[in-house]
């Protein structure tokens, strides 16, 4: 009884990932070499970071479809900033990226909080607006590697203790989230707002404000990822990370975060993202065209959401004594 559903969900997902790795390793042992796994993790780091932000949003019964556009816009702005002022120190760029992302998240959050517009409508709208703004400020032009300063490009790739900075940032975000979710009032408020908004009001939690906070968080992480993404791939243009929001939502759904709000865990989101990351990286290794990836993540979403629903189905009231004992 005490064993919660998330725990079993995490175990299942963990086992699925292991089985996947073993299956790949049986034919391509090089894939599971620590070195390669570290690469896979590094590759999945942006997804991990965004999935955690998205988790906060989904926990509060909302959804943020604008994360990829937010990422791309922030990435473009910091890249342009870098071309204008190549000397700008990296910490400064990080702060700007996070602040810009948070600002865009705030725009979403305020529309949801103050005007009570359904989150899916708000973020579908801002998704196109943010993308459109990239075109407006860049005139559709690309910013290429040679236009960016070396330090700007180097930061996410710098290796500390055997792992690139990008991986470390993802790890810190995961740790930060564990603390945030389990040990802070805001983290608990996410669950309360999503689990029972009506009751949340009575416990002194402002539902709209909490949802807005989740959007700001998700936006800030998208902004951070925006810089890391542009620097790592050393290019910025209108369509970077196009459709990535779906992969982020997929990671959450696969990780067992209920779209109806209030249910989910950091471990689930992390494993969901890793699962997709491993699949994505394994495809070329086992000689399957990367064009398969979209269909695979689509199928994974459908299977995961079906699984979530069947294991979470509410049972009718048990009235009969003997039935109660039988359970």
């Amino acid at each position, binding site marked *: *009884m*005490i064993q*919660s559903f998330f725990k079993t969900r995490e175990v299942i997902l963990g086992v699925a990932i292991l089985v996947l790795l073993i299956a790949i390793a049986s034919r391509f042992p090089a894939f599971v070499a620590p070195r390669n796994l570290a690469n896979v993790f590094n590759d999945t780091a942006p997804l991990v970071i965004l999935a955690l932000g998205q988790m906060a949003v989904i926990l509060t019964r909302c959804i943020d479809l604008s994360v990829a556009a937010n990422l791309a816009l922030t990435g473009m702005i910091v890249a342009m900033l870098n071309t204008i002022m190549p000397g700008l120190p990296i910490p400064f760029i990080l702060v700007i990226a996070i602040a810009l992302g948070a600002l865009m998240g705030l725009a979403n959050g305020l529309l949801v909080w103050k005007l009570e517009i359904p989150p899916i409508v708000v973020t579908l709208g801002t998704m196109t607006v943010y993308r459109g703004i990239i075109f407006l400020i860049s005139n559709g032009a690309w910013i290429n590697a040679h236009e960016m300063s070396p330090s700007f490009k180097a930061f996410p790739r710098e290796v500390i203790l055997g792992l690139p900075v990008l991986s470390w940032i993802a790890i810190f975000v995961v740790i930060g989230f564990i*603390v945030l979710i*389990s*040990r*802070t*009032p805001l983290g*608990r*408020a996410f*669950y*309360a707002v999503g*689990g*029972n908004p*009506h*009751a*949340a*009001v*009575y*416990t*002194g*939690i*402002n539902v709209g404000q909490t949802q807005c906070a989740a959007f700001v968080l998700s936006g800030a992480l998208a902004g951070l990822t925006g810089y890391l993404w542009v620097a790592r791939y050393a290019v910025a243009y209108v369509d970077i990370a196009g459709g990535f929001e779906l992969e982020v939502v997929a990671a959450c759904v696969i990780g067992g975060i209920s779209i109806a709000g*209030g*249910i989910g865990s950091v471990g689930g989101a992390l494993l969901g993202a890793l699962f997709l990351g491993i699949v994505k990286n394994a495809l070329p290794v086992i000689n399957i065209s990367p064009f398969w990836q979209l269909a695979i993540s689509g199928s994974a979403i459908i299977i995961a959401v079906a699984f979530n629903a069947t294991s979470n189905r509410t*049972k*009718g*009231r*048990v*009235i*009969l*004594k003997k*039935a*109660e004992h039988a359970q």
Partner: protein
Amino acid sequence: MLANTQGIENVHPHAAQDAKPVLSLNGISKSFPGVKALSEVALDLFPGQVTALVGENGAGKSTIVKVLTGIYQPDEGQISINGKPLSFPTAQDAGEAGVTAIHQETVLFDDLSVAENIFIGHAPKTRFGLIDRKEMVGKAQELLDRIGAQIDPGVLLKDLGIANKHLVAIARALSIDAQIVIMDEPTASLSHKEIEETYELVERLKAEGKAILFISHKFDEIFRIADRYTVFRDGQMVGAGKITEVSEPELVKMMVGRSVDQVYPRREADPGEEVLEVVGYCHPTEFEDIGFTLRKGEILGFYGLVGAGRSEVMQALFGVTKPSKGAIRIDDQIAVIRTPNEAISHGIVYVPEDRGKQGAIKGLPIFQNVSLPSLKTTSKNGFLRLAEEFKLARDYTQRLDLRAAALDQDIGELSGGNQQKVVIAKWLATQPRVIILDEPTKGIDIGSKAAVHEFMAELAAEGLAVIMVSSEIPEILGMSDRVIVMREGRIAAEFERDDLTPEQLVRTAAGLSEVTS
């Protein structure tokens, strides 16, 4: 105190000699578009005393609770605690001022642990500002022990039964160290034993010196546990005083503004031939071995405690849930009912208990609500005929004496009683043979209640077979020809009306030993 109660009946001069009120409301008014929910209401709560708040639905009880807990801001008036004027801009502020509420339906969070539920919003923190889990679980355990609850603070709330969830809500109230505890119909969905436990808790809270506002519809419990009473009617405070100085009829009179002796329409029971026979109806978890017959022109009452499985049986008869075993015979013919649609075509209709969710289609106009299950007859080849729909709606709403502005008015804009009339009208329009009414007068005003009762009697007189599920003993006794009592998913007994006393009903429903009367 005296100033608050000017112009109010039943004020006793020596009331002022009591202890000072810990909380006073003075001249509180609150309006919503089109409605004045509260007008210049006064309310005093005293330490170590239970004040019962009584009033009909819509009298302003839930509004005052929302004002007290910081959900609503009053337009006018003053809240003071220990003589100090205060305001509660948010629920947080109300909590900090020592006001806490335990709500009607246990409103907490299924996917948080018991300890987290108790401390959400005011969890103990470490010096880094993080939630101190150890401390929180320890304190939660203390609180649970204090109220005699055997619950592990680490389990998720969703793994608890309804009664235990309730105890968690109470522990939460205590955790705030509140001076003022509001209990909003705390016994509404509890079993007999759990209700007794709740009363014990109330006594304990009293002994600790808390001021308790106890909202209830049950007069027996008001007279049992309350020290004082306050009566609301139409958003106004119409009476207050000590419970020992008032009688039940006086309270009812204040509530409804006139004296109402609960009169039920007199009927000559003249049941005709049998229309419905239920044999060996079973469900894996909800009910077992249900069998009964129903005749034309008969009103068959179903009594039992909340959660005895009455609604579940009715919903199976109506095809919403599927029984695992058993059969239904209609006019001696075996009838298969797997969907509400099939039930309707067999002439069985169901007026559900949860009017808002299952009965009224809010957002749609009255006439579309009425015609909904009859669309097959009002339409032609699948195409709507609005004129037919209006005609049907006109006829049936007139028969039920519906009070509304026009037939194209949204049903959501009507009062509870009038919504219920529309729901009944929509089922009558299908010209059923058996009508099942599940708590037909729950939450509707006394005027509408009488109209519904009268109408039921009339339907039976016209030869309709009526099943009435009710938890109100006077209603069961006043309306039924026969009564079936259910307990824990089974039929506990069947009575003819003539040889039935309220005590028998209560004892059978609660599973107490037989009375010899």
